[in-house]
């Protein structure tokens, strides 16, 4: 196990990248502490798989270094890095039994059969595969196959990091939840550093202690699930995390006060935006309420999602979502929206540009 450091990492799939757009990864500096559970979250094509393949050694980055416990491994091939990776589609060796599949990484490294037996039995027990050990792996269900892939990663005791590349894609919905809690449990038992790549916020937020949100080859925010929800550092994070995502409204700033739809909107704290920047107000639907005063709005859609109701409104051409408990107003009704002040933030060119309220975290 090791601490993983990415230093000034850049990668391009073109031989001679010129503009920043040629880079699949744009300058990443990141530390993954030993034993942490991380999620790498972002939409398809944001560079998360590229980053994963660079850490595992399947790709050599165009620029920058990767250090495991301070030791440079940038040029090392995957089998020399002592890492494990679980892929989107379960990879199993068809002709082997489950036991031989799990033993494969150990046998390739020349471990003696006694050690192999001990490790394989332990891992199979952890993954609830003990009953299947003598079966051919080829005819198992996808979730069992994926468990074997995970098992092959965990069977080596000296792995520096176990990486999961959207491992639940082909798993049935009702088994996803089971496998996810299994993973979380495994992390607590083996205490290996784990990196979980996904575009599904639920998977990321339930698995990880720290979530790394990526967009277009850049890391936009690193934080605990709560931090990402409470104070998104970028409108992308606000929008991507949450259901529905954060309301992002065009704003004008004059004299230190922000305005939206002709009204002054009080913010959580002082504005730090540079003059001339494109400014937006961000507020989560959870903190928008229907009241007697505030922004006049027209209700365009009401969806009852069970525990609460999502009310979609229109204000001066912008859409504002509000989450209310109980039944919402009728479609077409005129309502007034109130924003909770300590949750109303300002973004300049996409980045957070208001200071937290006094006394707030």
């Amino acid at each position, binding site marked *: 196990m090791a601490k993983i450091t990415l230093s000034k990492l850049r990668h391009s799939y073109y031989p001679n990248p010129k503009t920043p757009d040629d880079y699949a990864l744009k300058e990443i500096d990141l530390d993954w502490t030993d034993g942490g559970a991380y999620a790498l979250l972002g939409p398809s094509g944001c560079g998360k798989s590229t980053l994963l*393949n660079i850490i*595992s050694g*399947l790709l050599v980055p165009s620029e920058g270094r990767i250090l495991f416990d301070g030791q440079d491994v940038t040029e090392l*091939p*995957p*089998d020399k890095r002592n*890492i*494990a*990776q679980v*892929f*989107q*589609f379960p*990879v199993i*060796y*068809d*002709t*082997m039994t489950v036991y031989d599949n799990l033993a*494969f*990484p150990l046998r*390739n*490294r020349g471990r003696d059969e006694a050690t192999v037996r001990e490790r394989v039995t332990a891992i199979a027990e952890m993954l609830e595969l003990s009953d299947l050990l003598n079966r051919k792996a080829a005819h198992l269900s996808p979730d069992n196959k994926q468990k074997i*892939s995970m098992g*092959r990663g965990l069977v080596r005791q000296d792995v520096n990091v176990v990486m999961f590349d959207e491992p639940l894609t082909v798993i049935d919905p009702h088994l996803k939840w089971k496998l996810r809690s299994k993973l979380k449990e495994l992390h607590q038992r083996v205490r290996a550093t784990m990196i979980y790549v996904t575009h599904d916020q639920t998977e990321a937020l339930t698995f990880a202690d720290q979530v790394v949100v990526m967009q277009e080859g850049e890391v936009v925010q690193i934080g605990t699930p709560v931090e990402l929800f409470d104070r998104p550092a970028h409108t992308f994070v606000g929008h991507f995390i949450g259901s529905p995502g954060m309301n992002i409204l065009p704003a004008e700033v004059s004299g230190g006060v922000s305005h939206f739809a002709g009204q002054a909107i009080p913010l959580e704290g002082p504005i730090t935006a540079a003059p001339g920047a494109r400014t937006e107000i961000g507020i989560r639907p959870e903190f928008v309420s229907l009241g007697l005063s505030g922004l006049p709005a027209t209700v365009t859609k009401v969806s009852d999602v069970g525990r609460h109701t999502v009310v979609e409104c229109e204000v001066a051409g912008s859409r504002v979502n509000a989450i209310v408990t109980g039944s919402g107003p009728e479609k077409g009704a005129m309502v007034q929206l109130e924003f909770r002040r300590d949750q109303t933030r300002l973004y300049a060119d996409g980045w957070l540009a208001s200071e937290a309220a006094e006394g707030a975290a």
Partner: protein
Amino acid sequence: MKTEYQKAWFFVLPVLVLVAFNALIPMMTVVKYSVQETFGDNLFFWQGLGWFEQILRSDRFHAALGRQFLFTFLILIIEVPLGIAIALSMPRKGFWVPVCLVLMALPMLIPWNVVGAMWNIFTLPDIGLLGYFLNHVMGINYDMTQDPLAAWITIVTMDVWHWTSLVVLLSYAGLVSIPDAYYQAAKIDGASNWAVFRYIQLPKMKTVLTIAILLRFMDSFNIYTEPFVMTGGGPGNSTTLLSIDLVKIALGQFDLGPAAAMSLIYFAITLLVSWLFYTLMTKDDQN
């Protein structure tokens, strides 16, 4: 419910008629000849299983059958490993893929008798490019019209040239269907190149290889045109394979009864070996 699908028979009927005329009826005619003796004028005398007994006991048949198995064994043992090796070394993506595929397909597009004629001329000692080179430049005494060994080397080489591509193309199709993740996982698991071949590539190629071997077995076991054009079964009887012998008996000696019995035995052997092979290869998948 059952009557609803009766219409399907009308769609199958044309095929049945066609198969009846090009396979079933001729085959039944062969069965008819195999149990009777005829002297022309459509006069038939009942013979029973006499022709079968005669063929099965004849040394000539045993010799031809032996040569046939040797030929098929030789070309399979060369073409299958060679085909896999070529498929493994072909590029998986990029500009050279279509070039390789077309080059590989070329020999298979040439008609059988042309292949025979080409190799015949190619290996003639005095005018053939290869024959002349071997005899007059390398100083090796090589003449397939005189030397049985040279004749065998020539027909085996010719078949390898003509049909290895089939194994290559089928293996290649099996190889490209393997997702990258398998190779990446194998790298991470520390697998050697041999282990990658043994546990990933070979199992994934198994189905297509079974088909390839089956096709090559049937085709080579029934081969006629190329050796006929090239050696005519000679020198002596050294390259008289089963089909060549059969034609000699049927059309050369006009012994229709024994020829018909031999055809049926020949057919039964091909069928039996194919069935055995296929059953053994797919046995694992059932349990």
